[in-house]
């Protein structure tokens, strides 16, 4: 795989379109037709299709980061190595791709909640989190997160008690942050894989918590 843009977010190589407009249109039509046939016959519903997309986008998105978090939850020695030198500890699991940037992992606790942002541009720990979500790169999040983090979190549906200290970490070209969320209750006895499946991208950016499995 070409790694031309290792230094920062990698979107350009894979958003590059090598199909002509006519080719894309023909393919679009083919899929629309197929979808139409199958939904008409009641074989599959549009709702199901949307759910599949959302499940796979969420589940597969932050895979590497989720593995890091799950390992830290089950392996205390790894957790300590991760907090001491995240770049090295993440590399242990085989996730590289950083070029000189340091990874720093900040840990949530009962009294501390961490949030990652990049107020200057859109620095993001993409080797562990994949592509940044659109809102991460947008000025409203970038500017408001530093001024009113609690207010922004409320918009994400996360209301924090006033007793919880909120820390905002501003990423840069040199340092990329990753939040180590709290392990949810009710996960005793979960395997590392099962735990990793619970970890969401948003929880590792710090705009969400991980819910206890129902």
């Amino acid at each position, binding site marked *: 795989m070409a790694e031309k843009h290792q230094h920062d977010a990698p979107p350009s190589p894979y958003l590059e379109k090598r199909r002509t407009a006519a080719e*894309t249109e023909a*393919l679009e039509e083919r899929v629309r037709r197929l979808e139409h046939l*199958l939904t008409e*016959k009641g074989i599959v519903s549009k709702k*199901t299709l949307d759910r599949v*997309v959302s499940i796979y986008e969420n*589940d597969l998105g932050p895979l590497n980061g989720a593995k890091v978090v799950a390992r830290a939850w089950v392996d205390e020695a790894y957790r300590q190595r991760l907090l001491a030198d995240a770049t090295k500890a993440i590399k242990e699991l085989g996730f590289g791709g950083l070029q000189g940037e340091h990874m720093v992992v900040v840990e949530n606790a009962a009294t501390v909640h961490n949030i990652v942002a990049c107020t200057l541009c859109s620095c993001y720990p993409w080797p562990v989190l994949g*592509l940044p979500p659109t809102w991460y790169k947008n000025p409203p999040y970038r500017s408001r997160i530093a001024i009113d983090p609690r207010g922004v979190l409320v918009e994400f549906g996360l209301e924090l008690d006033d007793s919880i200290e909120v820390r905002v970490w501003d990423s840069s070209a040199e340092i990329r942050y990753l939040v180590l969320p709290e392990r949810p209750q009710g996960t005793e006895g979960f395997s590392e894989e099962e735990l990793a499946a619970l970890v969401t991208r948003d929880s590792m950016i710090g705009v969400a918590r991980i819910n206890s499995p129902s």
Partner: protein
Amino acid sequence: MDRIARAEVADMEGVGALPRRSGELIFHDQWECRAFALGVALHEQGEFIWDDFRQHLIASISADDKTSEIIDPSGPGYYEHWLAALEKMLIEKSLITSSKDLVL
């Protein structure tokens, strides 16, 4: 439907492996995303066996002389094969009658 991505889909290796970057699925166009969802949804509903679909996918990719090796996931190309494999699968299962139905 499962809340979690199915391993047989997510963990395909080799020729048929999903284009991913840092774990995340790569879609270049909206239609790729729709085609992906159709294939996975029909599989999850038990309309066909995943490995049968995967074999069609691999066959389609392998038959394409432009891509002698694994498709570069950073560029488009994969979902054309996905779509072809899906159409073939659905015809086999008589969920659609013929590929002619699909072309305008």
